[in-house]
C-alpha cells in the first residue's frame, strides 16, 4: 500500500496555518480572545499532516451549501 495524505482527500477542506498578524486581526474582528476560538486537537490527522503546533490557529476554507465558501478558524490544543 502506498502512502497517502489526508490532505488529498476530497472531504478534507483546505487547512492553513495563520501567521501572527492574521490571527491578531481575526481576534480583533470578532472581539474575542484566543481561548474563545473553536479548538482542534494536536493529534488530529490534518494537524499532523500540515505540521501545525499547539497554539497555532488554523484557517479552514470549506465549501458550504448555503454560503458558497465559508471560513472557519480553530486553535490547536494539546490532546
Amino acid at each position: 500500500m502506498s502512502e497517502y495524505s489526508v490532505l488529498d482527500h476530497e472531504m478534507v477542506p483546505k487547512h492553513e496555518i495563520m501567521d501572527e498578524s492574521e490571527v491578531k486581526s481575526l481576534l480583533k474582528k470578532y472581539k474575542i480572545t484566543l481561548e474563545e476560538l473553536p479548538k482542534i486537537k494536536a493529534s488530529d490527522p490534518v494537524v499532523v499532516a500540515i505540521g501545525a503546533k499547539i497554539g497555532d490557529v488554523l484557517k479552514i476554507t470549506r465549501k458550504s451549501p448555503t454560503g458558497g465558501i465559508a471560513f472557519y478558524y480553530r486553535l490547536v490544543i494539546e490532546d
Partner: protein
Amino acid sequence: MNYSPPKRIDEIRFGLLSPQEIRDMSVVRIITPDTYDEDGFPIDMGLMDPRLGVIDPGLRCKTCGGRAGECPGHFGHIELVAPVVHVGYVRLIRSLLRAICRECSRLLLTDEVRDHYLHKIKELKKIKRPIDDVVREVFFEARKNTICPHCGAEQREIKYEKPTSFYEGEERLMPTEIRSRFEKMIDEDILAVGMDPKRARPEWMILTVLPVPPVTVRPSITLESGQRSEDDLTHKLVDIIRISQRFQENKEAGAPQLIIEDLWELLQYHVTTYLDNEVAGVPPARHRSGRPLKTLSQRLKGKEGRFRGSLSGKRVNFSARTVISPDPNLSINEVGVPLDIATELTVPMHVTPFNIEECKEYVRRGSKHPGANYVVRPDGRRVKILDTNADEIVEMLEPGWIVERHLKDGDIVLFNRQPSLHRPSIMAHEVKVLPGKTFRLNLAVCPPYNADFDGDEMNLHALQTLEAQAEAWILMRVQENILSPRFGGPIIGGIHDHVTGLFLLTNGEKKFSKRDFVELLKKCDIEIKLPEPAGYEDEKPYWTGKQAFSMILPNDFSILYKNGLCQRCSECKKEKCENEAYVVIENGELKCGAIDKKGIGAFEGLILDRIVKEYSSSDAARFINNFTLLSIRSIMHFGFSFGLKDEDIDHTAKAQIAEVIREAEDRVARLIDAYKNGELEPAPGRTIEETLELRIMEELGKARDSAGKIAGKQMGMTNPAVIMARSGARGSMLNLTQIAACVGQQSVRGERIRRGYRDRTLPHFEQGDLGAEAHGFVKRGYKEGLSPIEYFFHAIGGREGLVDTAVRTSQSGYLQRRLINALQDLEVEYDGGVRETRGVVVQFLYGEDGVDPAKSDHASPEVIKSIVSDVVGKDLEKVV
C-alpha cells in the same frame, strides 16, 4: 431601599457532606421515633422537634424566631448506630475498593504512574474540560495490579452484589471495613481518582450520620377528621430511628452476630429506600395503603420532579383553558373568549385623572361583564369588589389605585396550543368576548398551532403590564407570524374549504349576475367598486369568478407562477394552458389560471408570500381575512359535497382496470417462470431473488398507477374528490385510486409480505408460491371491498404504519428535546457570528451565509430575483 448589583457566579462546586459538617449544621440530634405527644405537641428530640422549623401559622421557630413562611427550617441529624453505604455512590465505592490496596489503602499504581495521571487531570482542569476519561483509565489500570506496588500485599477479588453488598473473595465486607480502608487513603491518591480530598473524602460515602431535613421540607397535613398525616420522608425517618434503636438494644444486650447482621441489613435497607425508593433489586418501601413511598430521589427525578416540574415549569395565574372551535367570521388576529372566562381573567388598570371615570364605571359594575373583580389600594392591599361594597369603593377610588378589570374586546392576550414545538405555537390575539363556552379562532390560524376541532383544548394568558402588551402586539401578533421563521414562507393560509372555494371560483369561466357577484364579496373588508362586466349573456351583464378574486387583491399587485395543476408539458402553452395552470396576475387582476393551494394555501401560498413581503403584514392579514370570507361564500354558492356515488366508475372502466391488473399478473407469472428457468438477468448489485422481487413490485406498482389513471379519467374535473385532490385542498389522487380502482401492494419494511407459515404467507397458498396474490397484492379497491385474504394482508401493512408513527413521534420528540436543550443558549451576535454562553465561537457567520431564514424566500436567498425584476420593470417572463 437596599440595592445590590447583580453578581456573577464564577464557579459551583459539589462535594460530599462530612459527618462533622452534618453535625455542625444540625440544630438538634433526633433520638426518638415519635412525632407528637397525646396533646398534639411535638416531642423534643423527635422528628417534629420545634427547633427544626415551623409549619403551623402563628407559632415561632425555636431556632431563629421566624414565623411560618419566614423561617426556612433547620436541619437536624441522626447518629446511626452502624455505618451504612450510600446507594447513590455504590458504583464509585466499588471502583475504589478494586483500585486500592486491602492492606495499606494505597492506589494500586506506582507513584510515577499515579503522578502521570495526576498531571493529566490537573491540565484538563486548567482548561475546564471533563476529567472522566482519565479517571476511568486510572481505575482500569489500578485494577489490573494484583500485588500492591507499595506494601506487596496480594489483592483479592472484590465482588459487588446488588444493591449494596460487597464481598472480598467469600468474605462479606461490612461498611465499617470499607470505611476504615477509605479513611487510610492519602490525598494524592484521592486526587488521582478524580475526587477532592478537601470536599469529598471517600469515607464520607459511607454514612455514619444522617442529616434530618427541616419540617418545612416534609410538612405534615391535618386531614378533615383532625387526624395528622405525615409526609413520606417523615415515615421513612421514623423507620430508620426505630431500627437504629433496636440495633442499639440488641448490641448492648450482646445478641448473637447473626441477629446483629440482620438488623444492620435492615438499617441499610431503610437508609437506601430513604434516599432512593426505585433502586434495582430493592423492593420499594410502601405506605400502609400499598403505595410506594416518594422519597428523596423521587422528589427530584423525572417530569414531575423538582427540576422539570417545579423549577423549569410551573403553574401560572391569569390563564384559561378550554375547548376550541372554529369561527370564520373572526379575523385571524382575534380570538373568541367565552363570557365566563372574560369575567374571571383580569387586566390591571392604573387609575389616573384621565381614566378615573371609566375605572369607576368598571368598579360599579362589579361582576357584571365589563366590570372588575379587585381593586388594589396604594398601600398594596387587595380588596374584592362585591355588590355590597362596590359603591363604597367607587367613592374612595382615586389616582394611584389599581383596578383589576375584566378582559374586554381589543385586549391583547397570548394564545397557545401544546405541544409548543415552534415559535408560532404561541401567538398574541385580540380578545373578542363571545357567548358560549369555547375559544373561537379563525380557520387560517389552525396550521401554525396544528389545531383541529375534534376536542382540542388551548390555553390563553392575559398580559398584566403595558410593556408586555406592547411587546406582544409588536412581535407576537398573528399577522406578524405569517412568515415562518424556519423557511421564510407563509405558514398561515387557506385550508380545506378555502382552497376548494377559491378553486371553484377561479377555475374556468364562472359567470355571476350582479346580485350574486356582490353577494360573494359583501362580507369582505374592501371598497366594492364594481368592475366592468366581463360580458353579456341574454342582454344581461355578467361578471366572472376571476374578477371576484381580483377584487380582494391589492391594486398594483402582480405575480406569475405555475400552480399545482401544471402537467410540466415539454412546451408550456403559457396563457393558453387548458389546465388553468399558468397563473398571471397583473396590477391586481387575475388574468388567467386558477387559484389553488400553491396560491393561498398555508405553507406554500405564493400570492400570500408576495403580499406579506411586498406590502405589509397588515395587508396580508386583511387579504387572508378577505379570501377566507370570499371562499366560503363561493363554496356555498356552488355547493360542494362528496358521497359514495362520487366514487363510482362505469363498467367499461371497471373492465379496463380488471384487464390492466390481469395483464400485470400475467407479466408477474412470466417473471416467475423466467426466474425458475434461470433466465432472469440479475440487476446490478442484487441477487436474482432480489431482482425478481424488485421487478414484481415494479410491475404491480405500474398496474396500480394505470388503474388509477383509468379511474381518474373516468371521474374528471367535476368530481368533488378530484377537485379536492387537484386543488390541493385535501386528499390525493392516490387516495382516490385506492378507493375506486385498486389498493395495490401491501408491504412490510418496503418488501412484499413474506412472513407467516413455512414458505408461504397463509395456508391458502402453495408453498413457494411467488405470485402477486400470495404476497399481499390487493387488486380490489376499498369501494368494491377486499377479499378476506386481501383484508388480512392490508391489516398487516396497516399495523406497520401505526407502529411506525407511534415510534417516530416519541423518538423525534426526544431528539428534538435534546437538540433544544443543547442549542438553546446559543446567540447570534451583531457581527453575525454564533457564540455560546462562555463566548466561545460556534460559527463565524450564522449558517455560513449570515442569512436569517425567516427573511429568505423558502430558505433560499432568491429575493434578489424578484428585486431585479421589480427594478428592471415588471419583466415577469424572465422571473420564471
